[in-house]
């Protein structure tokens, strides 16, 4: 077993060797290095052909038309382009946008920017299991609402939003629907011929493609129009200017092709590992699952080990790469806003660990982290005054704490 072990696939993934091989073919003099916008020679034509192949590969995974795919630098840019671009274009119709409290910062900060420009934003609360209910969306739509923006799979807790149902509501009410699919593409089935989603953001590096590469799906029928946020040579039908990075795009295309072919088998394998991990904690007292496993992506498991602070647990897991919702792992000193939005008490948010399993995870690695987590939690609870109090039957919520 090679150490350290990577269990943070929701943060990023390594590039699949098959992807890296394709990318390497698009960089050097003897490769496809040309500028796809060069119309006067074969270098440009070859680059254009490679890019159009990749566009088809991305479109195939989600059953869309390749002309609906706009290349971007990543899901953050796609979210910015979709939200600000759609809201701006439809400004005369209204200035109200709906999103939720558990969105990625790329969505929340784009909405904050709209607020500064005079828009009104509704931030929906998730239910305790972390799901955004379609009815909550329906109830929030007003006459001046132009856009609903929600994530497909939550990056921290792995819950799957029912975007098919929410899409029906939005279409019926004449509101555009944007979905951030950075965490779901290649993991959850997406069918754009069926789903009434108008704009969808993708990232390459979450599914074994390169960092710095993404795409935005922009529906053609019925047509969705957005205002460009980056101006330049009019690339990507004017929606996103900038010379196309052939190697990055080819890498993203190959990553999406592999995902399309292998998704079913991979999900089965990863789900078995995830269940093995969760069962490994089943004998432990006070290990709480965050979110719900009912409507959940295969590779994610978010657990709060009560009375143990997350960062100190991560210190004990130095052979592993995992992440925590604890404040101490961030610069902000605030625990995860996602976990807090679920109504989790702060102490459980501080005690959370996100394990994310992926393509290269083995059963041996899962067994090893179970062993290490059990030992570390036991050790840290020995050190924890809160564990003593819990064991003595003290209700911690009744204690008068000296907050600082």
């Amino acid at each position, binding site marked *: 077993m090679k150490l350290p072990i990577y269990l943070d696939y929701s943060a990023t993934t390594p590039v699949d060797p098959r992807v890296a091989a394709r990318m390497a073919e698009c960089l050097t003099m003897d490769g496809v290095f040309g500028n796809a916008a060069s119309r006067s020679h074969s270098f440009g034509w070859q680059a254009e052909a490679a890019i159009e192949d990749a566009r088809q590969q991305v479109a195939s995974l989600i059953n869309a038309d390749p002309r609906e795919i706009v290349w971007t630098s990543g899901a953050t840019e796609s979210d910015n382009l979709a939200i600000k671009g759609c809201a701006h274009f439809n400004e005369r119709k209204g200035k109200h946008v709906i999103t939720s409290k558990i969105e990625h910062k790329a969505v929340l900060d784009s909405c904050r920017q709209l607020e500064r420009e005079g828009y009104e934003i509704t931030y929906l609360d998730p239910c305790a299991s972390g799901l955004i209910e379609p009815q909550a969306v329906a109830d929030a739509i007003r006459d001046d609402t132009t856009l609903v923006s929600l994530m497909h799979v939550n990056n921290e807790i792995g819950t799957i939003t029912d975007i098919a149902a929410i899409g029906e509501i939005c279409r019926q009410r004449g509101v555009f629907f944007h979905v951030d699919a950075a965490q779901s593409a290649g993991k959850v089935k997406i069918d754009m011929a069926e789903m009434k989603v108008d704009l969808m953001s993708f990232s390459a590096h979450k599914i074994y493609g390169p960092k710095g590469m993404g795409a935005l799906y922009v529906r053609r029928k019925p047509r969705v129009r957005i205002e460009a946020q980056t101006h330049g040579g009019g690339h990507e039908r004017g929606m996103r200017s900038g010379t196309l990075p052939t190697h990055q795009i080819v890498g993203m295309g190959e990553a999406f092709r592999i995902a399309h072919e292998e998704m079913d088998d991979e999900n089965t394998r990863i789900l078995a590992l995830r269940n093995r991990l969760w069962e490994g904690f089943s004998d432990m007292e006070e290990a709480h699952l965050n979110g719900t496993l009912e409507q959940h992506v295969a590779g994610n498991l978010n657990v709060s080990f009560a*009375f*143990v*602070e997350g*960062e*100190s647990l991560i*210190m004990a897991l130095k052979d592993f790469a995992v992440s925590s919702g*604890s*404040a*101490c*792992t961030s*610069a902000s*000193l605030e*625990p995860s806003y996602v976990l807090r939005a679920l109504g989790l*008490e*702060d*102490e459980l948010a*501080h005690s959370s660990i996100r394990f994310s399993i992926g393509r290269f995870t083995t059963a041996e690695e899962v067994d090893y982290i179970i062993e290490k987590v059990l030992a570390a939690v036991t050790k840290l609870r*020995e*050190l*924890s*005054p*809160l*564990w*003593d109090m819990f064991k003595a039957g003290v209700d*911690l919520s009744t204690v008068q*704490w*000296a*907050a*600082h």
Partner: protein
Amino acid sequence: MAYSDKVLDHYDNPRNVGVLDDKALNVGTGMVGAPACGDVMRLQIQINDDGVIEDAKFKTYGCGSAIASSSLLTEWVKGKTLEDAAKIKNSEIAEELALPPVKIHCSVLAEDAIQAAIQDIRKKRGED
């Protein structure tokens, strides 16, 4: 976060973990922090007839710096009089452990803990 070797040492081998009898007249207990903030320290000191701290124990819920700060504190207070223990400053703890700026509050909490423990013992002995 890159921690100093001293923090890692206290985290891996915490000194003086445990509990003293908080009802005893020569034991003072200081519990500071809050679960909602991500750290709670319980520091206990026991003094002899000469008013010198002869034993100290701690338990801490918190990050590595909080554990290290309280572990270090138990080492420092042993053999000190209450007056001298009261003079321990958070800056000394932060310096000894080379805490990064974002973790200074852990050393502040440790200073609060020793102050609270001393206050508790003085109150018990009617010196307050």
